[in-house]
């Protein structure tokens, strides 16, 4: 690996001031993506700020309305959390399917967000939960809606002197969530595409719905047409053709090394159909 200076801050305040002071610095928050990018020389920072051990950013807590997940919570922390399973099960469904036990023990939800891959598995669930991201710098905190955060593959509006502190969303204890993804194999494979759907269902009718798609656009896409189609309808009354037409309007996949445009369109439609079938069984 190319040489860099390893810096370990004592606390969050310390981390913010180092970040403001140093140029050419990257934040290490788990390292399962960043260290690979440094080895491949896609990123060549002079300084590496290791925030992995800032325990103040590894807390999952709630108040009466909100759940707040510290950015340095690992995927395994989220899988093990009762607070998450009771209030945002869809996020757990995604974390369980990430990488491998080794990756889930080190990779963090904050790292998954900041890496800003359109294929990141935690992102579609976080979109359906209408998450807010809390960013901190030496000059203070700001809150950004996740739907306004990403600009393209690997790009977001975070400033170089900011750290993602936590992710916050309303509790969704009565909602039914489903996350489905397709990859070449179950473990250790990046998603070709993914779908998250979060619903309030009453007697077979969809009262509220949020759908988000991964890896079928430059960033996560929100399923506007699909939601408009299914809202206030009996699930059993929606035809496969209608679903397919709506989903294809919502997504804009490309062909790349992991899949083709045509395949992504076809399978995204099928995953949405399967999610709706699961809802009928519930």
């Amino acid at each position, binding site marked *: *690996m*190319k*040489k*860099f*200076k*390893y810096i*370990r801050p004592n606390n969050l305040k310390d981390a913010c001031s180092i970040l403001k002071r140093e140029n050419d610095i990257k934040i*290490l928050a788990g*390292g*399962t993506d960043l*260290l*690979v990018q440094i*080895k491949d020389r896609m990123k060549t920072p002079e300084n*590496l700020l*290791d925030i*992995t*051990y800032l325990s103040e950013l590894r807390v999952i807590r709630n108040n009466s309305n909100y759940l707040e997940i510290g950015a340095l919570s690992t995927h*395994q922390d989220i899988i093990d959390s009762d607070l998450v399973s009771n209030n945002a099960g869809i996020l757990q469904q995604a974390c369980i399917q990430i*990488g*491998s*036990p*080794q*990756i889930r*023990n*080190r990779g963090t939800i904050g790292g998954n967000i900041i890496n800003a891959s359109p294929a990141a598995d935690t992102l579609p669930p976080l979109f359906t939960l209408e998450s807010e991201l809390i960013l901190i710098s030496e000059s203070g905190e700001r809150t950004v809606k996740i739907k306004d955060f990403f600009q393209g593959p690997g790009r977001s509006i975070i400033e170089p002197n900011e750290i993602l502190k936590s992710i916050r969303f309303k509790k969704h204890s009565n909602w039914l969530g489903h996350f489905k993804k397709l990859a070449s194999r*179950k*473990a*250790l494979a990046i998603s070709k595409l993914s779908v998250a759907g979060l619903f309030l269902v009453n007697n077979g009718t969809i009262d509220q719905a949020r759908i988000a798609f991964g890896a079928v656009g430059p960033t996560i896409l929100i399923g506007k047409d699909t939601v408009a189609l299914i809202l206030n309808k009996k699930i059993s009354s929606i035809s496969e053709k209608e679903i397919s037409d709506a989903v294809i309007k919502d997504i804009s996949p490309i062909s790349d090394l992991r899949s083709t445009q045509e395949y992504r369109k076809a399978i995204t439609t099928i995953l949405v159909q399967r999610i709706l079938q699961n809802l009928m069984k519930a």
Partner: protein
Amino acid sequence: MGKINFILNGKSVEFNCPDNWTLLRMLRDGFRLTGTKRGCGKGECGACSVILDNKIVNSCLILGNQIDGTEITTIEGLSSNGELDRIQQAYIDYGAIQCGFCTPGMVLATKVLLMKNKSPNLEEVREALSGNLCRCTGYRKIFEAVLSLKDEK
């Protein structure tokens, strides 16, 4: 960063680790513990797996300096007084080793599984070893070896 202190296979050690060395490199080049293998170097194959504070991790995706104050177990730490761990013996008995390159990581992933779950079923074994790739045996004998260690109580 200066000297780090940690527990390596039950012994307290210190090391002056270059900033850009991974834990994998520190174990192999610094401590000459070459049982930990370098496979893909990208967290995809699990050949470099070690146990860090009772969790299975890829040592190729951790910096040496990051393990200051932690406890590491490598494959060399499993046997005691020349006696193999019962997991190692089961891998031998069931023919679960062919070239052997993935074996240290597989055995350590098995160790962590059995620490948490004394009687795993096949699905749980597959899940626990899903971060470790083997290109020789096709996994069946590996799973049989692990399942033979089930606590039958």
